C-alpha cells in the first residue's frame, strides 16, 4: 500500500486540477435559473404514478437498501443505483459528466460543502417550483440553510453532522482529566495528557479543510460570502482568529498526533487510545461502532467545547440528494428525492446508523433515548440531538469549495507541518483562493 500512495496522491492532485479546469469552463454560465419543471407536487405525484427509469449516484452506506425499499414500494420505477466513488472521485466524475453534457445521473448525493459549486454552475434543478419549499419546517435550520443557494432550493437534506466532542473516557479517567467545557480547558487537558503519557495525544489533525472550516464556523467566523459573481473571503475575521489562537497552541506544542484522518493508522490510533478525543460530526458513532472495535466501552460523547461557555456548535459533513439538470425526467427524480429524505426512505437510513436532518426523527424518544452499548450505555443521541439545535446560523461555503479544500494542504497544511502560525497558513490559503476565484470569473474581495 505504501508503494501506491504517492501515485495516488499525484493522481488525486491531477484529478483535482481537472475538476478545477472543468468547473472553470462552466462557471459563469447561466447561473441558478430554475430548471426542469413548472410543476408542483402534483407533477411529482403524477410522474411517480407514471413510472420510468432514473439513475442515482451515491456512496452513502444505506443507499442500496434505500433503493431496494423504493423499488418495492414503486415497482413501476426503475432506479439504477451507481456508487461512482467516495467524495472527490464522485465529484470529479459528476463534474466531468456535467461538463460533457451527458452521462450525469438523474439524482446525485452532494455534500453540503459542494452544493454551491454545482448549484451556481447551473448543474442542478431548483426544487422550489415543485413545491418542496413547504418542507422547510421538517428540517433543522442549519441543514435547510445548507440546501438553499441564492434563491434556489437544490436538494432535500439527508443527514446532518452537528459537532460534538468524542473522547476516550478510559484514558481521561486514568489521568484524572475532566471533560473540557471550553477550548482553554481542552488545551490544558492536552498538555496534561501528553505530559502524563507521551504516547497519548488529545487529538489528531494534520490539516483538514472540512474540520478547519467547521471550527471557524463554531467560533463565529463567516469567512465566505457569495452574492452573484462577487465573492468575499476573510479568513482572518474574529472567529477564524479565535480558532487559530486555540489550535496554534495545540499544534505548536506538538500536542496533536500527526496522523492523517481516515487512514489505517488513524483507525488504529482511535482504537488503542493514542488519539483520545475528536471534535467531529454527529455521524461518528456509526463509524466508531463499525470500524473501531478496540474502542468499545471506552468512548463517550460530550458537547463540543466552546470559546466563552455559551453552548454553540457547527455542522461537520452531511449530504443532500439533488436533481441534475441533465435528467430527462426531473419530476420523477424529484419524487425519488422526496421519498428518500421526506418519506419512507428515512427508515432504512436510520437503520443504517445515519444521523438524520429531520426534526421529527431527531426529536423522537426512540432515537434520543437509545442506549449505545459501544458507548458504555450512554444515550449519546441526547447529546447529539441537543447539538443539532445549537448550530450557529448564517454559514456558507465557497462556490468552489472542492478546489479550495484540495489546496488546503499546500497552504494551511504547511503551517501544520512546520508548526508555524496557522494565521499565516490561512492568509496564504485566502490569497490562493482569491487568485483562483478571479481567474474563474468571480470578483473576489478579501477581508
Amino acid at each position, binding site marked *: *500500500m*505504501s*508503494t*501506491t500512495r504517492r*501515485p*495516488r496522491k*499525484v*493522481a488525486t492532485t*491531477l*484529478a483535482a*486540477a*481537472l475538476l478545477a*479546469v472543468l468547473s472553470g469552463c462552466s462557471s459563469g454560465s447561466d447561473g441558478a435559473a430554475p430548471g426542469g419543471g413548472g410543476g408542483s407536487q402534483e407533477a411529482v405525484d403524477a410522474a411517480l404514478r407514471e413510472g420510468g427509469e432514473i439513475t442515482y*449516484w451515491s*456512496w*452513502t*452506506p*444505506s443507499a442500496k437498501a434505500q433503493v431496494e425499499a423504493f423499488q418495492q414500494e414503486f415497482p413501476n420505477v426503475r432506479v439504477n443505483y*451507481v*456508487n*461512482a*466513488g*467516495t*467524495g472527490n*472521485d464522485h465529484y*470529479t*466524475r459528476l463534474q*466531468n*459528466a456535467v*461538463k*460533457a*453534457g*451527458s*452521462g450525469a445521473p438523474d439524482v446525485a448525493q452532494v455534500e453540503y460543502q459542494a452544493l454551491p459549486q454545482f448549484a451556481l454552475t447551473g448543474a442542478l434543478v431548483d426544487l422550489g417550483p415543485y413545491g418542496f419549499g413547504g418542507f422547510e419546517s421538517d428540517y433543522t435550520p442549519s441543514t435547510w440553510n445548507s440546501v438553499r443557494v441564492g434563491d434556489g432550493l437544490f436538494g432535500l437534506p439527508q*443527514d446532518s*453532522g452537528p459537532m460534538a466532542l468524542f473522547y476516550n473516557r478510559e484514558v481521561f479517567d486514568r489521568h484524572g482529566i475532566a471533560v473540557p467545557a471550553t477550548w482553554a480547558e481542552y488545551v490544558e487537558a492536552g498538555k496534561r495528557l501528553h505530559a502524563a503519557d507521551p504516547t497519548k495525544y488529545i487529538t489528531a489533525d494534520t490539516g483538514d479543510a472540512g474540520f478547519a472550516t467547521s471550527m471557524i464556523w463554531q467560533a463565529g467566523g463567516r469567512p465566505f460570502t457569495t452574492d452573484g459573481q462577487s465573492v468575499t473571503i476573510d479568513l482572518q475575521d474574529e472567529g477564524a482568529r479565535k480558532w487559530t489562537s486555540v489550535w496554534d497552541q495545540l499544534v505548536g506544542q506538538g500536542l496533536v498526533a500527526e496522523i492523517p*484522518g*481516515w*487512514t*489505517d493508522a488513524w*483507525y*488504529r490510533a482511535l*482504537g*488503542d487510545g493514542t488519539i483520545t478525543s475528536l471534535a467531529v*460530526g454527529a*455521524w461518528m458513532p*456509526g*463509524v466508531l461502532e*463499525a*470500524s*473501531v*472495535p*478496540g474502542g468499545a466501552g471506552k468512548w463517550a460523547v460530550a458537547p463540543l467545547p466552546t470559546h466563552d461557555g455559551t453552548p454553540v456548535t457547527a455542522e461537520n*459533513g*452531511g*449530504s443532500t440528494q439533488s436533481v441534475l439538470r441533465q435528467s430527462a425526467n426531473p419530476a420523477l427524480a424529484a419524487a425519488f428525492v422526496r421519498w428518500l429524505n421526506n418519506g419512507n426512505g428515512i427508515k432504512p437510513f436510520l437503520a*443504517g*446508523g*445515519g444521523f438524520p436532518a429531520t426534526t421529527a426523527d431527531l426529536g423522537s424518544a426512540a432515537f434520543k433515548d437509545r442506549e449505545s452499548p459501544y458507548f458504555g450505555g450512554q444515550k449519546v443521541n441526547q447529546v447529539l440531538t441537543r447539538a443539532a439545535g445549537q448550530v450557529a446560523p448564517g454559514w456558507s461555503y465557497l462556490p468552489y469549495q472542492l478546489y479550495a479544500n484540495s489546496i488546503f494542504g499546500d497552504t494551511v497544511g504547511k503551517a501544520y507541518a512546520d508548526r508555524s502560525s496557522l494565521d499565516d497558513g490561512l492568509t496564504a490559503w485566502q490569497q490562493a483562493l482569491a487568485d483562483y476565484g478571479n481567474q474563474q470569473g468571480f470578483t473576489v474581495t478579501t477581508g
Partner: protein
Amino acid sequence: MTAVASTSDPRRKSPVLTAVMAVYLLYTLVPLVWLLISATKTQQALLTTSGLSFGGPFALVDNVVQTFTHDGGIFLRWLGNTLLYVVVGAGGATALATAAGYGLAKYPFRGRNAVFAVLLGAIAIPGTALAVPTFLLFSNLGLTNTPWAVIIPSLVSPFGLYLIWTYTAEAVPDELLEAARIDGAGELRIFLTVTLRVLLPGVVTVALFTVVSTWNNYFLPLIMLSEPGWYPLTVGLNQWSAQATGVGAQPIYHLVITGSVITIVPLVAAFLLLQRFWQSGLTAGSVKR
C-alpha cells in the same frame, strides 16, 4: 592488460555497492512482505497488530473468498475488465508498434525523419499530461464511460514503436529481406513469417512494457469511467480504499490488501515466465555488430 582484467573481475567486491544494493533490495521487498503478511489478517487484526509480523487469526482464505464475493462479486468483474483492457489494449499496442516500427525501419520514404522527431516528442510527453485533452476529446465523441475510452488510448505506445524501430534496424539484416524477396515472398508474408521470428525478443519486451502499463493504468480510467461495472482493478481497489473516508465510512482494508495481492500475482507470473525474452530484449541493440 592485466590491470584491466583485474578491474573487470566479476568476483571483486565493493562493500559500498553491496550495501547500496542491500538497502535497495529491502526497499523493494519490505512493502511486498508487508502486503503478503497483511493479507492474512482480519480487518480487526490489521488495526491491532504490527504490520510486519503475523497476528490474529489466519484469515487469508477467508479474505480471498470475501474479496471475490463482496458487493455482489464486483471484484471478479474488475479482474475481467483489467484482462480485457490488457488483452485488447496492450495486445493491440504491441501489434501496432511492431508493424509500424518494422515499417519505419525498413521502408525508406520522404518524411521519415519527421516521423522520427514526432515519435521522440511523443515519448517525452507523459500520458497524464494528455489526460485532460483526451477526456474532452472522448466526451465530444460520446465515448466516455465506455471501455473504448480506456482501450483506444492504450493502443498507442510511442516507446514501444521506438524500441521495435531500433531493434529492427539492428536485428533484421537487409540481406535477409532481399533473400526472401528473391525467393518470391510477398512483403506481408516476409513480415509475418521471417521478420516476426527474428523480432520476437523485442516484441515480447514491448508486450511486457505495455501489459504492465495497461495493468497499472489508473488515472485514465479514473476520469473516463463512472460506471463501476467498467472499472479496472486499480480504480476499483481505490474505490474500496476510499470507502474508509468521511460520513458513513466503511473501511475494508483487509479486502483492499487481499485484492492488491491478487492484482499483482498475474504480473509477477508474466515477468517470471517471460524473463528469458525480457532480458535478451533489454540488451538488444546495445552492442554494434
